[in-house]
């Protein structure tokens, strides 16, 4: 085992870096940059798991790190990168309800809100004994909410997918820091994510468009024809 203060410093550093990536996920406009940011965030997550392994010594954390690197740093970004190549769109300039500046302000409020509410729930057990893990829980849930913010403030489907993926990163941080996340759970989530990304790869016909145009496109490529017919026929 390595000395606790040293690991604490590294873990703090990783948390800070994760928050930085989250901010760029909210505000960046270039799709390749967004993808690289997501990749970096996942790599930081793996590093976090390894750092906590050195403090606690539970091998599940190493497995989680390995799985994270394999899936979220390599496989998923590869697929999304492929999609980007195919749709040849490099920038996402459309924001629906919140522009980057206001969504960053909202995320400040989110973090403070999460801190206050978690402080009430966890304080007797965690907050005093292990401030770093409490901080991790706050960052985890905040990252989840910030991912959600990306989901509903962006218009392009491909950015929404990245928001969803970063939400899952938040869940993983919370899992690592607060509860012992069963490894099987993590595998399940990862499979879910890969299927999600695969689906979006298959559905590239419409991924460069907004949800409204998406329906149009599916219709134009005569996918699900019968479904549309059935709906139109209904009274």
């Amino acid at each position, binding site marked *: 085992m390595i000395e606790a203060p040293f690991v604490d*410093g590294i873990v*703090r*550093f990783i*948390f*800070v*870096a994760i*928050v*930085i990536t989250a*901010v760029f996920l909210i*505000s960046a406009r270039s799709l390749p940059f967004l993808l690289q940011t997501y990749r970096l965030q996942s790599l930081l997550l793996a590093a976090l798991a390894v750092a906590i392994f050195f403090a606690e010594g539970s091998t599940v954390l190493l497995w989680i790190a390995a799985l994270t690197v394999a899936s979220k740093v390599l496989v998923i970004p590869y697929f999304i990168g492929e999609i980007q190549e195919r749709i040849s769109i490099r920038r996402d300039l459309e924001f629906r309800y919140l*522009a*980057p*500046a206001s969504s*960053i*302000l909202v*995320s*400040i409020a989110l*973090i*403070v809100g999460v*801190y206050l509410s978690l*402080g009430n729930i966890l304080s007797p057990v965690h907050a005093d004994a292990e*401030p*770093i893990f*409490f*901080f991790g829980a*706050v960052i985890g849930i905040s990252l989840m909410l910030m991912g959600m913010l990306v989901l509903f403030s962006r218009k392009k489907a491909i950015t929404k997918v990245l928001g969803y993926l970063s939400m899952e990163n938040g869940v993983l941080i919370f899992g690592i820091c607060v509860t012992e996340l069963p490894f099987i759970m993590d595998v399940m989530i990862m499979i879910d994510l890969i299927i999600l990304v695969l689906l979006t790869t298959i559905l590239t016909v419409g991924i460069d468009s907004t949800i409204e145009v998406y329906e149009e496109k599916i219709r134009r490529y005569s996918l699900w024809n019968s479904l549309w017919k059935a709906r139109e026929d209904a009274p």
Partner: protein
Amino acid sequence: MSVSFAVFAVLNIGFVLLVSPLFMSLIKIVKARAQGRRGPRLLQTYYNLAKLLRKETIYSPVSSWVMRATPYVCLSMAVVAALFVPLLYIPEPVAGFGNVILFLYLLGLARFFTALSGLDAGSTFGGMSSSRDMSLAAVIEPTSIVVMAALAVVARSLNFLEIARNNAGMLFPASATMILIGISLFIILVVETGRIPVDNPETHLELTMVHEGMVLEQSGRNLAMMEYAGAIKQTLFIAIMVSVLMPFGPVTELSAAGVLFAMGLFVVKGSVVSVILGLFESSIAKMRFFSLPNLFIIAYFFSVLTIFIEVFA
């Protein structure tokens, strides 16, 4: 005032005056190389300043004393501000010197006079740039103050000399939150020195001029002073950033060898920041004036987050 502080004053101001134009040239060279040009010589800014100093000063017939006083105000404010940020040797704090808030307001005074002189000459460009600069100032000032407040919270002191003293001898930033502060400080550096996403220091285009427009009517010695003041301001912000992110180097005990070593080290660290600044400038486009708050808000977010982490976690 003690002897050590007097030595510090002479050393610090002398060194800032000596080294500031160097970083200016360096940024220009990095930008030129990024665009596939050769760029100016490393000492070009010194030659420019020397040339300007020899030239005649011409005033617009409608201008008042403001036009004449502004270069002196700007340069003296920059030099006084140089007393606040230790570069080579960190003395015991002396009453008032090193205060973060006073530092900001000294620069604010210089900015106020620059904007006034922009209006004073009676040219349309000057008025337009002054109005732009003041609109920017209204947005960036709160951000600067929050960033400095965050720095003060992390470093547990409102005094640059004390902050540097606490950090001296450390190889890495004292805490993870210092990195957040570093990013915020970088944004402040870009904004305060009129670098690319905010303002383009090299063009004389109506669309992009903010700082250039205000000094357009300055000439000769006065222009040299304004440029010099700008260079010093930039070096000071670089020094603040360096003292947060790369704190090793400045000595706390006076010795010739230590000071010389610190000099060399600061030139290296300042060059690193300048190269990063040059690359940053080459890699992004000038922002639309009204989307600038998006940039400031990142600095604001990181500072608020820093305060939050320091206070709660």
